[in-house]
């Protein structure tokens, strides 16, 4: 039996991850340094881990409400109001998800009809396009360039809108570019869609990790809250990737629809993770999120070191304003992104991610994560410097 034929067309047509081969090589390689890691190198703060351990000891091993524990939703609601000036009713406008990743899937599946178009800035995080495809929609990428600081420009957006445009994904601060959209930028986007019925899915998972000015949520732009589904989570802000804990905030119609899917596919987020999330926010309010600030400070030091490192090599590099990636252009080496990454790995044992993994406009760039120790950053910069010198 050819089981491959039994796999659904939709799934078969999702291209395999472009980084699998690098992954396998690095894994076998001794003394390789990886700047390819898309998660914090900090461990979840001890008080958060301790609270979760305690809950397990107390026997909190049951399901929670489909929406997530009310206490946690109340904390999330307070957090969104105090940090980003957006107000949601914890009872029916907040849903606790299995990471922001589940939120992306739920939001798209809740709103997409077959053939609906979803506009996505390119380059962007890898999961939007497959999730749109699986929901039956069509991805419409919008090229964002280094010259525009990788922002979504209103003119470019206007050009891509059709009568089939159902939604816009706003992934800022952006993985992989580190680009951000400030208030003016968001206002300009709002003006383009104000008279349309376009829904905005705002993926704000890196909202806490900003270095030049605070994050502005699209939902805080006047008149935009009602059409916006805000996605966020604990992974990046509290170094809690493995807990798989995120949340969605939106009007109750959207959240209700998302809960319908969530209740039959996930039931609820794991209670031990929810307890951990509760402690993360509780302690955060107590010390005004000092541990988050300390972490951001530390990332900021590394960001400046790695940015200077690439610029000193003679590579053009946009100054990332958020997240923990730099996205230098490797055009001057004459190599494609994949060629560059493969040869860098074989010749200098440094793993970075080819920019085209994040969309066609990522071609000519590489993504380097600075969520690793300063020693590794410095050593990696030395090695990449040697490599670049040979080919430039």
């Amino acid at each position: 039996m050819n089981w491959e034929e039994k796999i659904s067309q939709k799934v078969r047509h999702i291209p395999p991850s472009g980084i699998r081969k690098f992954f396998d090589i690095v894994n076998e390689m001794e003394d390789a340094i990886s700047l390819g890691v898309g998660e914090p190198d900090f461990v979840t703060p001890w008080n958060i881990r301790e609270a979760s351990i305690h809950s397990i000891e107390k026997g909190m091993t049951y399901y929670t409400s489909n929406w997530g524990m009310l206490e946690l939703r109340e904390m999330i609601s307070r957090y969104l109001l105090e940090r980003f000036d957006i107000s949601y009713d914890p009872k029916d406008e907040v849903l606790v998800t299995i990471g922001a990743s589940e939120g992306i899937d739920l939001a798209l599946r809740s709103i997409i009809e077959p053939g609906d178009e979803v506009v996505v800035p390119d380059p962007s995080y890898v999961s939007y396009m497959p999730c749109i495809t699986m929901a039956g929609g069509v991805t419409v990428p919008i090229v964002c360039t280094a010259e525009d600081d990788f922002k979504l420009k209103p003119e470019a957006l206007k050009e891509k809108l059709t009568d089939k445009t159902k939604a816009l994904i706003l992934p800022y601060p952006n993985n992989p570019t580190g680009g951000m959209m400030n208030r003016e930028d968001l206002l300009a986007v709002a003006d383009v869609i104000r008279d349309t019925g376009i829904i905005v899915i705002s993926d704000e998972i890196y909202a806490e990790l900003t270095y030049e000015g605070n994050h502005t949520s699209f939902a805080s732009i006047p008149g935009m809250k009602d059409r916006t589904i805000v996605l966020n989570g604990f992974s990046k802000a509290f170094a809690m990737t493995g807990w798989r804990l995120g949340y969605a905030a939106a009007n109750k119609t959207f959240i209700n629809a998302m809960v319908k899917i969530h209740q039959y596919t996930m039931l609820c987020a794991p209670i031990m993770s929810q307890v951990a999330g509760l402690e993360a926010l509780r302690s955060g309010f107590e010390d005004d999120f000092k541990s988050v600030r300390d972490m951001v400070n530390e990332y900021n030091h590394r960001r400046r070191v790695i940015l200077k490192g690439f610029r000193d090599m003679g590579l053009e590099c946009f100054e990332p304003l958020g997240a923990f990636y730099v996205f230098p252009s490797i055009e001057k080496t004459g190599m494609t992104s994949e060629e560059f990454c493969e040869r860098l790995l074989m010749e200098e044992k440094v793993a970075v991610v080819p920019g085209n993994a994040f969309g066609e406009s990522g071609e000519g760039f590489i993504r380097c994560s600075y969520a690793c120790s300063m020693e590794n950053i410095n050593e990696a910069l030395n090695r990449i410097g040697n490599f670049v010198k040979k080919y430039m």
Partner: protein
Amino acid sequence: MGSRVNEILEILSKNSKLTSTEIATMLDMEPQEVEEIIRELEEQNVIVRYNTLINWDKTDKERVTALIEVKVTPQRDQGFDSIAERIYKFPEVKSVYLMSGPYDLCVIVEGKTMKDVASFVSQRLSVLDPVLSTATHFILKPYKIGGVILEDDEKDGRQVITL
């Protein structure tokens, strides 16, 4: 400026080997500016010394450390300062703290052997006039010193590439 100074101090307190050029890059400053601030901090004795944290248990050097609770009579006009001074001037004494609670001075003493420490306590410390009593506790094993866990078993288990 104050926050810059604190940032430099925070960075140096974790790694005093960093050069002023490296610190300047981390803080987006000019190297000369960083040098100037560090020189001032050294002059003001804010930066007292550049130390290295060593886990002596991993070396073959023999040494014991004891924490000694000392009760003393404060001196007229000088409070605890003069007796503290008479104690901290002994080279065997590594640290001295004035404490709240049931005893007055916490004295950390280092010696080669337990006998060394015992003889220091009986022959040098407890014979001082203002010293009323001492209680000596030997330190068996250090786990965490100055914010650093000595045997950190939390390995980086992250996948090498994630998007």
